[in-house]
């Protein structure tokens, strides 16, 4: 048990995996100087430049070459710097990495972690702020990780590196400095949600940074006597539908909150899947809170306007109980 930041938790997870398995290596731009957010600090010094490798500004090659190296038995951690730049390597990720094992009839594997720092972060504007987790959940072959706390960024990074599947690993840039206790022995499995707090009045489903907001909202609601069960999905494929169904079975109310654009966001999947299966349990219409279908502006006041806040979550929950 130790206190550390979200960035440091993943860094330690990687360092430990690299110590344990010489096939694990990291590759991306500027990693030798610790990475653009310092999330690789010290790793090049410990493991050398071959295993913590700089890269040219060649996202397609970073993704494609890491995939080739994965097929021959290494286990790359790929750094995309900003989730937005992964769009320079979409063919490699979606047409190649996600599909190869199936197309080749099981002959190949792509044990890769594809780190894509995402989300809005201090006026980064439209090309450095996106949250595209719904895209990757839609693509067979990919596992989608959306950690929200230092503990989960440790446990999930360990699990992602240990996985034989390609894991799209979406860290939220606004969480790098978040501190928390980390227990390296804490169990984790993809598809198991974290229950942030219990309550019988409403189920609030969220992930990534918004899960922290949901927990905060539950605090506001608790002070008013409303019990919210907050479920942090942690991974979107697989996702813990069972936990959500169990909770909605008790509360009868479902609110899903996320930072991404609401239209065709993963919140739609949660609402649809739950409504299909637990329609009879619902006491009120389910509801989503996501960003409007507009682009992310630079001006801080406009950027703020698009954020889903704890207060918005609490307000929506209250309305659903009214």
């Amino acid at each position, binding site marked *: 048990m130790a206190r550390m930041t979200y960035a440091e938790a993943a860094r330690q997870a990687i360092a430990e995996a690299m110590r344990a398995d010489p*096939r694990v*290596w990291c590759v991306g731009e500027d990693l030798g100087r610790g990475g653009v957010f310092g999330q690789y600090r010290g790793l090049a010094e410990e493991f050398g430049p*071959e*295993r913590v*490798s700089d*890269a*040219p500004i*060649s996202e*397609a*090659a970073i*993704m*494609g*070459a*890491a*995939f*080739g*190296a*994965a*097929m*021959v*038995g*290494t286990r790359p951690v790929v750094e995309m710097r900003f989730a937005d730049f992964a769009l320079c390597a979409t*063919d*490699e990720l979606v*047409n*190649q990495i996600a599909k*190869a*094992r*199936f*197309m*080749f*009839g*099981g*002959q*190949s594997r792509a044990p890769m972690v594809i780190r894509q720092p995402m989300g809005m972060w201090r006026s980064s504007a439209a090309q450095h702020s996106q949250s595209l987790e719904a895209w990757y959940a839609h693509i*067979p*072959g*990919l*596992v989608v990780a959306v950690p929200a706390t230092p503990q989960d960024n440790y446990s999930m990074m360990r699990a992602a590196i240990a*996985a*034989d*599947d*390609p894991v799209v690993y979406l860290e939220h840039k606004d969480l790098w400095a978040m501190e928390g206790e980390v227990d390296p022995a804490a169990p984790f499995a*993809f*598809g198991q949600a974290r229950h942030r707090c219990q309550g019988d009045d409403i189920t609030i489903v969220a992930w990534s940074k918004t899960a922290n907001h949901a927990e905060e909202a539950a605090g506001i609601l608790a002070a008013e006597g409303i019990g919210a069960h907050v479920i942090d999905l942690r991974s979107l*494929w*697989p996702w813990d539908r069972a936990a959500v169904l169990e909770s909605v079975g008790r509360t009868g109310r479902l609110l899903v909150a996320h930072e991404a654009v609401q239209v065709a966001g993963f919140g739609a999947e949660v609402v649809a899947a739950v409504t299909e299966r637990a329609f009879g349990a619902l006491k009120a219409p389910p509801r989503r809170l996501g960003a409007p279908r507009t682009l992310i502006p630079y001006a801080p006041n406009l950027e703020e306007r698009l954020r889903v806040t704890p207060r918005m979550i609490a307000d929506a929950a209250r309305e659903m109980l009214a």
Partner: protein
Amino acid sequence: MRETNRDIGRSLALLTMMERIRAFERQAELAATRDRLVLGAIHLSYGQEAVAAGVMHALRRDDLLLSTHRGHGHTLAKGADPAAMMKELLGRAGGCCGGKGGSMHIADFGVGMLGANGVVAANITIGAGAAHGIRLLGDDRIVVDIFGDGAINRGPFLEGLNWAAVFSLPVLFVCEDNEWSATTRTARMTAGAGAAARARAIGIEAETVDGADVEAVADLAAELVARVRRDRRPAFLHARTWRAGGHTYFDPAAYRDSAEAEARAREGDPIERQRARLAAAGIAAAELDAIRAGAMAEMEAALAAAAAAPFPPAAAAFSDVQDIGSPAGEAY
């Protein structure tokens, strides 16, 4: 005369491989046109067999290969089983990808063939990466990464070559230049002096060879493969060849001047050239014919076996996707 015997042996082996490739593709074509057993597109390499035969001859079985949509010849020459390949083209159980990939995704990891690719140029970075993996693992294998002349206009050509050179990776890039990109003459859409010049500008030594001459291809490939294996850095082989047929089996190639196309195909037929060379070296016509007949018989048997094979079991649609969150468990 040991030397000569060894040379003749190689020459016969190269001819045999080219005959097998052509016979395989003829049967594949018949499976598509006569038997209607192939639904998807297949891309034949008639006239280009020398590149596959000559380059693969230089490789060890544990060396690695990545190829394109036009990859039957490369795959066969790397050592894959034609019956398993034909089953794959027909989408059958027992296909080398279990019938799930088809012609454009043919692969046989058992012989180091890490896959054809349906996306032009995508294999260039992946092949560089396989070599990167070899470098990290520290063994002495090398990678051959083949692509067409059309692929040199896609970004992964630049990114993959630069990657291989920067990280000093053991990969031989092979540009199989058949002058065509589907229905388009590649030269019309390609600026500058071509594939080899582009490679050199990225710091990779490049050589051009007459791809209709299987001996020349084999010689140059042997030299470059040895160099890559020894120096652990990339090299580039530009093989000039000619696509004798259409882009796919159902493309009559009506867009090209048929007199020119036929003349080029005739002059550039690597099999006829090799037969002539061997005849001149004193090999009896009967022996040469027997090679062809053997290849034909082998591939007819491969097609027969494929046509008789069952389709994959329904569960195959859900296997080999992913371990975590597998659709075999939860698909919706």
